[in-house]
């Protein structure tokens, strides 16, 4: 028992660090400065492939009376379309539903790797992917706003709230800061930090169990508690996964809504 645990614990660094998020690359094997083909990017491609295959297979021959698979695919689209896009944007939301659904499904599956056995890390715990999505949302809502209001009038509309003139010097910088600077960062960091923290939490409790076992065999009950916590946290993580995918999609829709709004 003691020997086994030391063998187990020998590989276990504790506490986990940021470096645990940067696994050695797969091609070339074990490379540390090569990021083109790592577990993270492999999961990225698998996500994209799975989503495309799922939708193409389930929607190859759409029927008026849907089959079960077709119904599932339609429910996913219908959920984002009706509960996010149309709810927030009205009839115009239908035009944005395809992008929002793609976004939602992509984030959901990318997050989901955090609790899939053997994957157990979400690509979204690397800020690059949330950042790309956030920049797309950012560019999209500004573009839509400019298109809707006519070029620079959008900025006037977005920056100058209907308020007494003497407050404007205070309000305009705040509006500018919150709308055009904070938004992309908050979007990206919210998703990234949630997935990062989730992974970190699971690491802490899993590795912590081993670390305690390693330190003293009599801590074994605490190790068990620690691992039980890991399981509980996995459920919490599942909640966070779904919630963050939803939040990202809803916020993107809400930014578009703000860009399309005619009144403050």
């Amino acid at each position, binding site marked *: 028992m003691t020997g086994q645990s030391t063998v187990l614990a020998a590989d276990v660094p504790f506490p986990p660090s940021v470096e645990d998020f940067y696994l050695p690359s797969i091609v070339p094997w074990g490379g540390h400065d090569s990021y083109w083909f790592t577990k993270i*990017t492999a999961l990225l491609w698998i996500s994209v492939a799975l989503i495309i295959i799922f939708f193409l297979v389930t929607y190859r021959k*759409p029927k008026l009376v849907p089959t079960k698979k077709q119904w599932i695919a339609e429910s996913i689209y219908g959920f984002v379309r009706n509960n996010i896009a149309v709810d927030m944007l009205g009839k115009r939301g239908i035009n944005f539903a395809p992008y929002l659904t793609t976004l939602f499904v992509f984030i959901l599956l990318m997050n989901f790797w955090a609790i899939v056995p053997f994957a157990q890390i979400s690509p979204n715990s690397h800020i*690059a992917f949330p950042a790309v999505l956030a920049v797309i949302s950012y560019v999209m809502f500004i573009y839509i706003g400019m298109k809707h209001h006519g070029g620079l009038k959008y900025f006037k509309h977005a920056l100058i709230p209907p308020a007494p003139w003497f407050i404007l010097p205070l309000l305009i910088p705040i509006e500018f800061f919150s709308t055009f600077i904070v938004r992309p960062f908050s979007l990206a960091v919210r998703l990234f930090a949630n997935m990062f923290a989730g992974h970190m939490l699971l690491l802490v409790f899993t590795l912590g169990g081993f670390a305690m076992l390693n330190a003293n065999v009599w801590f074994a009950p605490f190790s068990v508690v620690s691992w039980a916590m890991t399981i509980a946290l996995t459920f919490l993580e599942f909640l966070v996964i779904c919630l963050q995918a939803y939040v990202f999609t809803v916020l993107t829709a809400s930014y578009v809504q703000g860009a399309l709004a005619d009144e403050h």
Partner: protein
Amino acid sequence: MITTYYQLAAEAAETEHNPIIPLWQEVVLGIIAFGILCFVLMKFVFPMMEKTFAARVDAIEGGIKRAEAAQAEANQLLEQYRAQLAEARTEAARIRDEARADAEGIRQDVLAKAREESDRIIAAGNEQLAAQRESIVRDLRSEVGTLAVDLASKIVGEALADEARSRGTVERFIDELGAAGSAGGRR
């Protein structure tokens, strides 16, 4: 290989990663992957779903419309049948009226004919009666003449017998009769 792994790991440990700084390789891959995903889903999948939704709505609304059309047609047919029924009824009433009128006419005709016939018969009877009366009167008149003559001759004969009971006259008379009778018998 394991040694190189550890060497690399050791080297990597020296190059600190900042989790807030994105890796540009991952950014590039992220853009490509998400771009592919967006392209496929937004071009081939979700527009098809919208189409299917629209077709479904269309099918349901079309079904309702078809049902409404069928209902309208049924109503129209019912109306038509009712109109035809009413028409048939008025037609029947008209025919009945006509028949009644015809019957009345025929009755009137028959009555008229009967009356005419009876008149004719009565007239014929009257005529016959008149003719018979005429002939009877004529007969009577001639008979009255003969009777009168007979009576007269009887009366005259009685008178003659009373007045002149002469055998001569009677016998002459009988003789005359006898002669006339024998003469007649011989011829």
